[in-house]
């Protein structure tokens, strides 16, 4: 769904580094890492994007025409004006830290934990940045493209519990 043009023009006038594009009726916006929090803050408080639908990530390793390693994706919705907007933040190793969006949307808490669990991107200021799906002992980030599909043997080398540990 296309975002209202007034929102986009106001944003691009306020922030210099934004790239706006459209794809099949959806508005997409690429923000630099340094501006990410300010852009999202502006979107929430000035333009009424009150719902953070999802936070997810894409690993562009070896992808054609890709210039950056990770693309962090924020899907936003304005439930009053019925607007939707995709905000991307591109990240490269070793700087895989972005500000946490939990101060803006409480719902970002578990979403960011999932991105941290699967991609190893750390969120500065997150109140509880632990793994959410995998066991705490897991050491790798399995949705990165350089992680083998069958893992590095974690599924076989899990400790066998003894009677006195049960």
């Amino acid at each position, binding site marked *: 769904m296309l975002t209202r043009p007034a929102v986009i023009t106001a944003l691009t006038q306020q922030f210099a580094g934004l790239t706006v594009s459209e794809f099949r009726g959806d508005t997409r916006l690429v923000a630099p890492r340094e501006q990410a929090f300010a852009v999202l803050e502006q979107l929430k408080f000035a333009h009424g994007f009150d719902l953070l639908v999802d936070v997810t990530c894409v690993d562009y390793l070896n992808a054609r025409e890709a210039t950056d390693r990770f693309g962090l994706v924020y899907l936003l919705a304005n439930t009053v004006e019925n607007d939707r907007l995709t905000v991307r933040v591109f990240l490269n190793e070793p700087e895989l830290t972005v500000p946490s969006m939990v101060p803006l949307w409480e719902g970002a808490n578990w979403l960011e934990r999932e991105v941290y669990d699967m991609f190893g991107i750390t969120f500065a200021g997150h109140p509880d940045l632990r793994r959410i799906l995998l066991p705490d002992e897991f050491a790798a980030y399995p949705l990165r493209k350089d992680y083998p599909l069958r893992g*590095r043997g974690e*599924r*076989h080398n899990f400790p066998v519990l003894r009677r006195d540990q049960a």
Partner: protein
Amino acid sequence: MAVDLPDNVVVTKLDELASWCRKNSLWPMPFATACCGIELMATGASKYDLARFGAEVFRFSPRQCDLMIVAGRVVMKMLPVLQRIWQQMPEPKWCISMGACASTGGVFDTYCVVQGVDRFLPVDMYIPGCPPRPEQLIQAIIDLQDKIQREGTIFGAEFKQTQRQQAKRALIELPVIGQASEFRAAQS
């Protein structure tokens, strides 16, 4: 010297008597994590009626069970739960690995799905199928009853841990694929 026995007296061995009691009162622990659990429920329900074979008393407390039925895929995070439930079941106890996922990982050949619970539990019966039909589960329980009758002893000598684990080939012979040094380091 011939002894005349009345018709209502049966002579047997103590081992066989114990095994006969055990095999006809199996209390299953349904560890149903996937679609195999639906077939497991169907097996217990009226159409297939597992009660005909003396194993219908599904208990959801491991302390009351002696037959673990692992029905469905087990992921790494579920594995400690499965192991803990298994350890909390009193001896003598048996384990059925129901379906392709529990036995081999099935189509879920990924980093987090355990490729066969027999690496962590001593499995007595494997049931192929995706999911197996209730008839297959019933057949496995009947075969397990035969096994209990054949191998059982009254003092449970067949459950000595070392002997039992040596008998389970899969626990020893499965190769460890890849390196997990970083994972092991995180453990300690």
